[in-house]
């Protein structure tokens, strides 16, 4: 909160701190919804532009990250509906050199995951991204998506069922 106060008091460098701190999280949300690294990178710039312009509207009743993720989810879903996800034959870890990076804790990307995600609506991809990749709680997901905890739970259950059906179809 202190960083935000500094930005609101005219210190532009404070926003750079916020940007670097949340870039990866916001990028994960955008990529999980858009399923494309380039579009996700552009979406991240748009999201932080919106935050930069409208940070004064942040009412501080919730955590800044919750507010930021809500902006990110809405903007990513809006962008996904606009471009209707041009199916690109590029895996999620496209040319990232992740295998060569030597990260032994993560398995190589499964193409069935990308195929199953591409068959889901953007809102389903968003809630799955928040839950499985950003590992937010149901309460945080509800706040980020502008719904109650129970509604978030129901949405997550339905999105998960649709994902499972798509995943099994891709596995067949």
């Amino acid at each position, binding site marked *: 909160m202190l960083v935000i106060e500094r930005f609101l008091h005219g210190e532009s460098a404070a926003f750079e701190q916020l940007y670097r701190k949340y*870039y*990866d999280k916001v*990028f994960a949300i955008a990529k999980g919804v858009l399923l494309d*690294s380039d579009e996700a990178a552009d979406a991240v710039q748009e999201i932080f532009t*919106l935050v930069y312009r409208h940070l004064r509207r942040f009412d501080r009743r919730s955590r800044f990250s919750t507010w930021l993720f809500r902006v990110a989810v809405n903007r990513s879903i809006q962008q996904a509906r606009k471009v209707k996800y041009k199916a690109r034959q590029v895996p999620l870890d496209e040319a990232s*050199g992740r295998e060569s990076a030597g990260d032994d804790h993560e*398995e190589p990307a*499964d193409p069935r995951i990308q195929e199953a995600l591409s068959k889901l609506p953007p809102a389903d991809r968003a809630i799955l991204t928040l839950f499985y990749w950003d590992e937010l709680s149901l309460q945080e997901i509800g706040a980020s998506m502008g719904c109650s905890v129970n509604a978030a739970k129901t949405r997550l259950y339905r999105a998960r069922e649709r994902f499972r059906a798509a995943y099994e179809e891709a596995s067949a």
Partner: protein
Amino acid sequence: MSRIPPDVDRLMWALADDPEPNALDEFERRYPAYVGELGKRIDMVRRMRGTPLKPDRHGPVPPFRPVPTATDWTRPAWAAAFGVLLLALAAASYFATRWYLRREAANPVPIVEQPPLDPPSVPDIVFAPPRRFEAPRPAEPRSETEQLAPLSIRLEGVPLSVALRAVAEQAGLRLVLAPGFDRIDATVDLDLREVRPMEAFEMLGRQHGFTAFYQGNREVLVIPAAPSRPAAAESRTREERPAELPGESPPLPDDVRRTEPPGGQ
């Protein structure tokens, strides 16, 4: 695969999200039929979480580059500019219209005298005389006398009463002779071919001074004419006295009643 109960389904998702070993053992003990499905879900969630979504970079975070967003035009400055533009357009339209109207008023269009037009020729109207509407009359039913079959008879030198009875008998009619008929003493020669019975009676009546009336129910009444006015009775034609024609069965005419013999009643 049979449909999974909802509670088991939710339990499997919870275990797939957080596969705690003791919970897995307990699930396997209680729901052995769903162990395979649980294994597939655990594998799916593990692969999903293992799929990277982080940015493809090895260096620092790229610099922040503010971009124009689609909602920029809704900012107050843009809205104000748009409003000013609309006002300018409205004002320009108003002044242009006013200038055009003033110019039109300064240069009025001259009025050209038009030659008088000939009155239009009206064709003569000929009114046809009013036509009287006549409702179609229903076809009159054939009278009973017309339904009597024609007859042919030949008699020579027989009394009038015998001749009348012969005609009536051949026509199938019942003959009623009024009192006083016996005064008529005449001999008749008849040669009739295809003549209706009442026409035969009428013909004999004109010759011998009597009138035959059809009374209905195949009955014919024969009344002798008055002695003082035989010519009047004879002069009456069928057209002049249609109501007294045979077959119409009118009430007895006054002159006939007056000819009744004094001792007849």
